[in-house]
């Protein structure tokens, strides 16, 4: 294998990986936001129109992946507060319904929706990760061959 080709291969592989890491796609630009949102609990405060807290109100949380089935149920505290940590892998609109004695409302909380298409916490698809890994390995092999050839 010629020195020139090994150099080109290594350069292309490194350039490819670098290019992927630097792609201006929205998914990557929002990666930090997703992690922040996923690692943060959501706290709601339920009040009547009068401002009085809905203490003891029934809370039902629905996840985006199964909007028909309650993901979590609970009760507001004396100040009408309820906190939960959504599933980091389930991006989309989380719905929280609060009811007490004939009064009720539902709030819709978007969480990490901009990154749903990218999927996963890293923002890369499985195929992308596999190809990137092969590329890096290919580059390392090429570099190793280049170095060994120079020594020989």
């Amino acid at each position: 294998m010629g020195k020139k080709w090994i150099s080109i291969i290594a350069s292309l592989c490194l350039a490819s990986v670098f290019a992927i890491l630097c792609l201006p796609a929205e998914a990557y630009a929002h990666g930090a936001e997703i992690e922040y949102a996923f690692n943060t609990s959501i706290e709601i405060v339920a009040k009547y129109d009068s401002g009085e807290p809905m203490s003891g109100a029934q809370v039902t949380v629905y996840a985006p992946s199964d909007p028909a089935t309650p993901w979590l149920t609970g009760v507001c505290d004396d100040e009408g507060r309820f906190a939960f940590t959504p599933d980091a892998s389930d991006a989309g609109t989380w719905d929280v319904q609060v009811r007490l004695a004939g009064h009720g409302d539902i709030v819709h909380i978007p969480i990490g929706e901009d990154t749903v298409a990218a999927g996963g916490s890293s923002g890369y698809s499985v195929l992308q990760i596999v190809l990137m890994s092969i590329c890096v390995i290919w580059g390392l092999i090429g570099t190793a061959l280049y170095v060994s050839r120079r020594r020989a």
Partner: protein
Amino acid sequence: MRKRILVPVITVLLVAGIALAGCSGESGSNGGGAEATGTLQFHANGEDFVREGFVSKDGWSIAFDHVYINLEGITAYQTDPPYDPHSTGTIDSDIEVGLDGSHTIDLAAGDADADPILVGTADNVETGHYNAISWEMTKAASGSAAGYSLVMIGTAEKDGQAIDFTVSIEEEYGYSCGEYVGDERKGIVEDGGTADVEMTFHFDHIFGDAAVALDDELNTGAPGFDPFAAIAEEGVIDDDMSSLQTKLAADDYQILADTLFTLGHVGEGHCHCE
């Protein structure tokens, strides 16, 4: 020579593969195939207040014989982000399903355990979550509620006094509502399945509810039945908004007029009314 060609070919393929993998995520298409559809039912519900009767905030036992309501322009929507009735009366949606025509129904039909009234059904609707609904209460052109959008017929009793009432509303209202709030989640149509949306009407907003604290916002904002009882003639009330405006005290009439804007709900969820 072959080895020399093989190496750049593999490299180019890898780079092309990565590029294609990066592009593939943008389409998000589900591919071809038949469109998934289901059935969406539209219900109207006067709740137990209408079916079973109740005691008003001022102690009148109220039983309804009929509660005719005329509904028109009934439309369910898939909204994303979900429609918020607190912010605007305009529902923004690309997917909507409507019922044609005008529908006069009796919310008091059936016994105390009767189901909510089925107003209509739409078949072959797109699957998804119909999380908003709008409708109009308009004057019926004919039938039991002809000339009115709402007619309440029943009896109120208190301390041995009985009053037969027919209260008719000729005003018209347009309600825009978000998602149903209640025991179950409604409006989620799955492929081949049936879901329903509900127009709920809170008559305790008009008469109040003795089961709730008197200082509760529900009762403080409701006229109750006493103002109606005060205008009964020989145990009978038969009035519409026009005559009520002349007979009721100005404050009572205004409270009644205001509460009618809050009549329409989606379960316990509120609506925007114009």
